[in-house]
């Protein structure tokens, strides 16, 4: 059902209110990252802030949309436990339950704070931050051995965490007692509460300026505007059905059993239906996606294929209907483990984009280097003698496009996760980064080349338990389009270049000692168009810059380069390209 916009506000006032709300969430986010304690929060920015309606709909949010649509489910679980009329000014609620609430996995902890204006709750402010550890089987709480959500750390249903007098000490003590790095978790939670309280103050100031009723009226209008833009765009596409699928190596348990992700997209008029019913059944290992994850991957694929400038808010979900039966990998039954959702969600997003290309071929792109992920290194002792967890997120190469090469070294999927600076890693943790470089020939060749893959190597200086959380794409990787080539897949090694070298498996947890090293190779993006059509000078430039080898220039691109002069050989190139 399409929502009709009430359209009570004039276009200037509404624009200003939107800008002000955007500014508020941006400010909240800045405060969250700058006051947080863990490196995953303050350096990798794996967190977000939001302002939501009293029903839980997200109106404005900072950061990646992956977090933003899940607030709704968490707020609903808060309201189930604490009806609006029981809430008091200064209360804050906490939850990290992917089943009752909306978090993506257990380490994601959400704080929800009602915004009181003259005694009435008019909205919620919220913050979401990935914790480096919430207890469970391994440091970082996310390992292959998990078979139930109970193995993935302390799960908090929606409970009250804070009142006007400050933190509720009993709840804080339960949390601190159940994780490996209590001081860090406490500091991150304090930052999360703090920024939501600042958000409350700012909304109150906005109400004083424009009137509470105006602000309340603006919220549904903001969602209706995004919904309308999405529906208008969908309407312009041809009606029809499109399907796509991709494979994922395994679930971390049955190592020879690949998983199938499948999507069938039906476009009719101003609506879209997403059908996951031919996707793999849920699995024993932790590679299950809660619906809040699988749905948002599909919705954001639609938005990015259609028009990425449409503002994110819960209005975007309304034109999309899901067929997503319980028991699928995209909608697992409780208490299936979900800790390694991220790589799969990344593949699902790319699969949806692949299917959507049929409706909008002009925006077709090669896939990014899929198989994104993270490492969690749990140290027995950090530089100051305490337990510590280094939780680091990786980036890959992006897919090539109709006009340009793919970008190198970013996350292509719904989240902003800058590199943790090497200098911060080494200052905080007993580890040394040995190299961080591009991998020659890691990108898919094409008329436009994929973005480059990258290699990062570490050497341990202390005892640690390290878990790889790499999206399982060691075997099945990304893809090129329109004759563009596929990129390299993920690889990882333990003690590379020594006689103890061995490949590492996705989701593997390894006990490491000082002197041990490990290496992660993140893939590049897929190519677009035939590599034989790439301008020869661009191929030469790639060789000079170390992105493409002379051998690959010849075999993939049909471009001959003289290795002594490092100049193009036009005669041989012409011959190669004719063949």
């Amino acid at each position, binding site marked *: 059902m399409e929502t009709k916009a009430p359209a009570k506000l004039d276009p200037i006032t509404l624009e200003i209110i939107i*800008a002000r709300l955007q500014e*508020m969430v941006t400010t909240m986010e800045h405060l969250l990252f700058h006051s947080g304690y863990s490196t995953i929060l*303050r350096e990798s920015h794996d967190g977000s802030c939001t302002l939501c309606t009293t029903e839980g709909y997200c109106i404005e949010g*900072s950061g990646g949309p992956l977090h933003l649509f899940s607030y709704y489910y968490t707020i609903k679980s808060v309201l189930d436990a604490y009806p609006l009329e029981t809430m008091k000014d200064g209360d804050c609620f906490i939850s990290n339950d992917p089943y009752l609430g909306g978090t993506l996995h257990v380490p994601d902890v959400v704080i929800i704070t009602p915004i009181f204006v003259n005694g009435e709750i008019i909205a919620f402010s919220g913050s979401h931050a990935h914790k480096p550890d919430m207890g469970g089987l391994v440091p970082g709480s996310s390992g292959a051995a998990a078979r139930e959500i109970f193995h993935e750390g302390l799960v908090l249903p929606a409970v009250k965490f804070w009142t006007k007098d400050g933190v509720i000490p009993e709840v804080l003590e339960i949390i601190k007692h159940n994780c490996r790095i209590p001081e860090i978790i406490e500091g991150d939670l304090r930052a999360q509460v703090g920024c939501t309280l600042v958000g409350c103050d700012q909304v109150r100031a906005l109400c004083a300026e424009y009137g509470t009723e105006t602000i309340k009226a603006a919220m549904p209008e903001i969602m209706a505007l995004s919904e309308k833009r999405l529906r208008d765009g969908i309407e312009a596409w041809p009606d029809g059905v499109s399907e796509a699928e991709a494979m994922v190596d395994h679930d971390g348990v049955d190592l020879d059993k690949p998983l199938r992700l499948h999507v069938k997209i039906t476009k009719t008029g101003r609506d879209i239906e997403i059908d996951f019913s031919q996707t793999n059944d849920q699995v024993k290992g932790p590679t299950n996606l809660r619906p809040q994850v699988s749905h948002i991957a599909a919705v954001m694929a639609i938005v990015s294929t259609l028009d990425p400038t449409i503002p994110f808010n819960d209005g975007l979900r309304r034109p999309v209907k899901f067929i997503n039966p319980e028991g699928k990998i995209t909608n697992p039954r409780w208490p299936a483990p979900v800790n390694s959702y991220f790589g799969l969600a990344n593949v699902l997003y790319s699969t949806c984009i692949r299917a959507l290309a049929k409706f909008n071929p002009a925006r077709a792109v090669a896939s990014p280097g899929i198989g994104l992920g993270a490492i969690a290194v749990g140290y027995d002792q950090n530089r100051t003698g305490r337990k510590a967890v280094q939780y680091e997120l990786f980036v890959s190469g992006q897919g090539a496009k109709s006009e340009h090469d793919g970008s*190198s070294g970013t*996350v292509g999927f719904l989240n*902003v996760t800058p590199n943790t600076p090497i200098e911060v890693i080494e200052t905080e943790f007993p580890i040394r980064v040995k190299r961080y470089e591009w991998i020659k020939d890691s990108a898919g060749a094409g008329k436009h080349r994929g973005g480059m893959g990258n290699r990062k190597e570490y050497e341990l200086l202390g005892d640690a338990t390290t878990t790889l959380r790499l999206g399982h794409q060691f075997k099945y990787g990304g893809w090129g389009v329109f004759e563009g080539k596929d990129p390299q897949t993920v690889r990882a090694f333990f003690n590379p270049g020594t006689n103890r070298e061995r490949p590492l498996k996705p989701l593997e947890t390894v006990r490491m000692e000082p002197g041990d090293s490990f290496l992660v190779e993140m893939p590049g993006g897929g190519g677009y168009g035939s590599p034989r059509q790439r301008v020869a000078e661009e191929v030469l430039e790639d060789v000079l810059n170390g992105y493409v080898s002379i051998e690959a220039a010849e075999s993939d691109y049909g471009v001959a380069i003289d290795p002594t002069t490092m100049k193009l050989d036009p005669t041989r190139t012409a011959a190669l390209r004719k063949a």
Partner: protein
Amino acid sequence: MPGWRVGIDIGGTFTDVVGMEIETGKILVTKVPSIPADPSRAVASGLQNLMENYPEIKPEDIDFFAHGTTVATNAAIEGKGAKAGLLITKGFRAIYDMRGGNRPMGPDLIDTHWNKPTGLAPQKMTHEVGGRIGFDGAELEPLDEESVRVAVRKLRDEGCNSIAVCFLFSFANQSHEKRTGEIIREEHPGARVSLSSVVLPLIREYLRLSTTMLDAYVGPVVATYLKNIAGRLRDVQLKTKKLFIMQSNGGLMQIDIATEYPNQTLLSGPAAGVVFGVGLGKLIGEPDIVTFDVGGTSTDISVLHKHAYEETRHGKIHDQDIGTPMIQIRALGAGGGTIAHIGPDGLLKGGPQSAGADPGPACYGHGGKNATVTDANIVLGYLNPNNFIGGRFKIEPKLAAEVITERIAKPLGLTLQQAALGIIRVVCTNMEVGLRLSFVERGLDPRVFALLAFGGGGPVLGTRVAKDIGIPRVIVPPYPGISCAMGLLQTDVKHYYLQTRMASLGKVSTDELNKIFAQLEERARREAVQEGFDPKAIKLQRQFDLRYPFQGYELTVDCQNEDLRDSDKAKIRTDFDTLHKEVYGTAATGEIPDVVNIRVMSIAEVAKLDLPELPRGDKNPKPVSRRPVLFEDRDGYIDTPIYDRTQLGFGSVIMGPAVIEQLDSTTVVLPGQKAEVERYGNIIIEIGK
């Protein structure tokens, strides 16, 4: 006896000069064309011009010389910086291209067609150097000097004349970078060297590297310029030691010091305009102002809320990340010299290329072959061809009409007038988008702001853009064309002296802290003497950068200026907790903060702007002439009254349409708008709907 201060702002097109008599506040101004090939020549000719026009100013009477320049900015924007190379720690090639792995927020985040901006040195100009410093500053591997030499020779042979060096942990131990700098000077004496441990000695390698790369990219251009300017100032017999350049952070710095820190001058020109806006806003009681500084090549926008500008420690200059603290300014490639052209899609585009000062717009008659905004302004009658810069600059209206006809009107099948209006419309739209974004970023409502229009072109277009985006009032200051130069005369000389000392506030001894503070203050006083100030007259403030033990970012807390005793630590803690609660919403009162940096801020204050009040003028002043002017949404040229600004007084009122001319700028009052001169000579224009 010394009695004058001189401020000079070097724009892309004109160099503005203002002299102020310290005792009386008397202001004398002049303007000369910029010389982009050697901007220092314009400074010398500007100074000479000032002293020739006003013989009461003698070189030995000039006690203070401050200038702002867009030399560095233009090099970055126009891609005309040095061919620069990069030396990095072995194994870490990806750091620069990776750009922190970041991706912008908003639509770009999910745009599968997004392109990451490229850096200032490609991989083929990037060389790895062996050697490694650890997190605590300890040397883990000695510097591989041979690898430095090999790399430098390669870069030299490639024709690279500027080298950036950024090694891991150089902020903790700068010996490897320092030695590398020495080797570069041996191997390639002609090259300029930018060491990250000098440019921005702070943790987080990517931002430090990117800032260092910018420093290397603009460094040779700035160094040549500063060397030239020092020579020129000697040539014109200036005696004072107080020779300053504006920094991006809104404070002045002595030019000898500036040679070492070109990255700090990237916003030198526009920063002075913002400082001017703050001073003027205070003078006339207008707390919310957006500065709209339209020069020959660019437009600079800064939003001043409650009399204050925003400072950023992570900015961008033309897509390049920079960590140098600077005033938040949005720079657009749109000004009087901006070239209008027809794009590949057959649509009319404005910029970003500029005709600059040489050859300049076609109507200058210096061989300019492109249609510019100034040419359009001439065709439309906004500018007076016979009175451009007081008639000292010859304008050929025929050339303006020809170039617009040939380049724009004919290919698009438009009349000359339609084409000229089209150019203005396209360029103004670019400016309006920039203005709106500046408000949006701060979450502020343009409807309660005043637009301060300055730079030669601001008052020409200001009334139009204000009308389009709903800003109710435009302020045109008495000398709009030289506002940045005026700002330079109101700027304090500001320095931070900083010593990193990481320790728990609870454990570090007050003796040690007091010793560090004393050393920093000693340095501040010494440099003040070098800069020509009485060390007793400078204001010093002791500060701490503090954070809770696991945090990654600090808050700066003022500390008493008397030596600390152990009992004083409690107050520092309380002050920090209070500030933390204020900023972040909560405080960890049970935790003892860590000290990260110990700072001393030194300010040598310069007397603030004190414009003399204007005598009362004729309420209905007489126009000096009339000419036909074409306005959007009017049919044909309107016979429009022209006023001479010098004939206006306090209380003079002019109804639009009207054009007000003066030496350094022209104000266009649109039909239906009302302009009134206030007490200090500023024209206030009510925009209406």
